[in-house]
């Protein structure tokens, strides 16, 4: 808690650019998988008390594999792009793989050093968010909602 010096400012500027990386802005401007699924296996609503944003995750799961996903709702660029990126990342994955992704992504957001970045792929673009503690909840909203959906599906344990 001491006053930042000029070097610090340069670092902070860089952080902003890291927060809003091009891939994030792209997902924000052109979100993937926004359409709802007609008869989802499970559908779940999520809520971010900080900003009041709501999100809905629909899943179509067959034989333990996420065959389709849709994410709807309003939100900031971080929550929207995170939801979009998540939807791309999980389609075609098994429930177990999605669970590992959830674990890896939330660990990255908590600032853990011990995260398998290969596993996360494009999701790594959101790493910059962890420098902005209030925004972390934006980035994880879709993921927590997804996980609750999966827990509902598997009856409490996913």
């Amino acid at each position: 808690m001491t006053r930042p010096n000029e070097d610090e400012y340069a670092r902070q500027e860089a952080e902003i650019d890291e927060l809003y990386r091009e891939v994030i802005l792209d997902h924000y401007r052109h979100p993937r998988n926004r359409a709802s699924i007609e008869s989802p296996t499970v559908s779940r609503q999520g809520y971010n008390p900080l900003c009041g944003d709501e999100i809905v995750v629909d899943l179509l799961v067959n034989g333990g594999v996420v065959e389709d996903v849709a994410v709807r709702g309003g939100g900031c660029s971080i929550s929207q792009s995170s939801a979009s990126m998540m939807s791309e990342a999980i389609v075609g994955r098994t429930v177990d793989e999605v669970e590992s992704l959830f674990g890896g992504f939330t660990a990255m957001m908590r600032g853990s050093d011990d995260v398998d970045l290969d596993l996360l792929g494009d999701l790594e673009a959101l790493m910059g968010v962890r420098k902005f503690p209030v925004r972390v909840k934006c980035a994880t909203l879709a993921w927590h909602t997804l996980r609750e959906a999966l827990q509902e599906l598997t009856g409490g344990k996913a």
Partner: protein
Amino acid sequence: MSSQNVSEKPTGPLDVGRIREDFPILGRRVYGKPLVYLDNAATSQKPRQVIEALVRYYEQHNANIHRAIHCLGEEATAAYEEARAKVARFINAPSPECIVFTRNTTEAINLVAHTWGRANVGPQADILLTQMEHHSNLIPWQRLAAEKGASLRYIGLTNEQTLELDGLDELMHDRTRILAVTHASNAVGTINPIGRLVKEAHRNGTTVLVDGAQSAPHMPVDVQAMDCDFFAFSAHKMLGPTGVGVLYARRELLDEMEPFLAGGEMIKRVTLEGATWNDVPWKFEAGTPNIADVIAFGVAIDYLTGLGMENVRAHEMEITDYAMRRLRQMEEVFIYGPPDVADRGGVVSFNYPDLHPHDIGTILDREGVAIRAGHHCTQPLMRILGVSGTARASFYVYNTLEEVDVLVEALGKARAFFSNDTP
């Protein structure tokens, strides 16, 4: 534009250049840019006089109060009670005994709901609120209603987020035990017609609590002229330290109310079987109070009184007027609340159709501009507005028109940054 070097001539009712020199934090830079602090409705900055009062207290007078027979204890007690007297004068309370110190506005309102509320609100009663209340003036009443089986009623809003007073007759009647209403909205800026509401309420035998968190810091307040029964506000929003709130109440109400918290200080006589209570206001101040911060709050009040609350109000009207004019010139920006600055405090809440307040906030932050983005602890109001939140700039005595320019320019950058047109 470092605040330390601002020496423009005073043009408005306040000599802002001079005032800014009293606020050390205004010399700070954020991301290399001068801090433009426009989050005053959340909490205000503190002048060095207030900070120095804390230092002076801890370096020279610190002691526990009211029961000490030593010199430090007497000095601390006198200073603490003098601060109470200052608060009383500031809002024109009839006597210092009507002033209870709490932690914040929220605790002050909870105190009323727990003590007066539990004793006076029954299953047949109505509790009347408005749709623009801060959660702190909403949830205590919801809980009381749930506990007592009382009914909640809400005064609705017009399209300009003023209170819809047509049909008030139907909402207010002889079973309406309390009307709890904000003096000025922290979310959209509306100033409510408290005088008229109190008159209407008292005709029905309804007690009135006014949430003054956004009025006491920004305009002259006279609780006797207003004729309200309870009035609550927070020191930290009016140049004072964190950790101090005020509950004003009519003396008769305080006298008949049960204590809230129990322990040291608030008692007369204690046996193993039970206790009798101290006189008001001490009956409501259990345990060691926030002595240092109460004393420093007294100094904040001196500072505001020195500026003159009429001048504070005039300055904020000027700056709000300018901000609204500048924002109206921007494409797409939608401003909430009444159009006339005479009807609003120094809060300007706005939205873009397709830009999320959080994103605005983050980009503005990068430009040194601190605003608030979100629901402002008024989720029901946001739902009525059909948004999850708004971006909010809120002003105080040290803000300048130039800072509004910085805000507007930064908004332009945010707009461009997130524009769909850019690749």
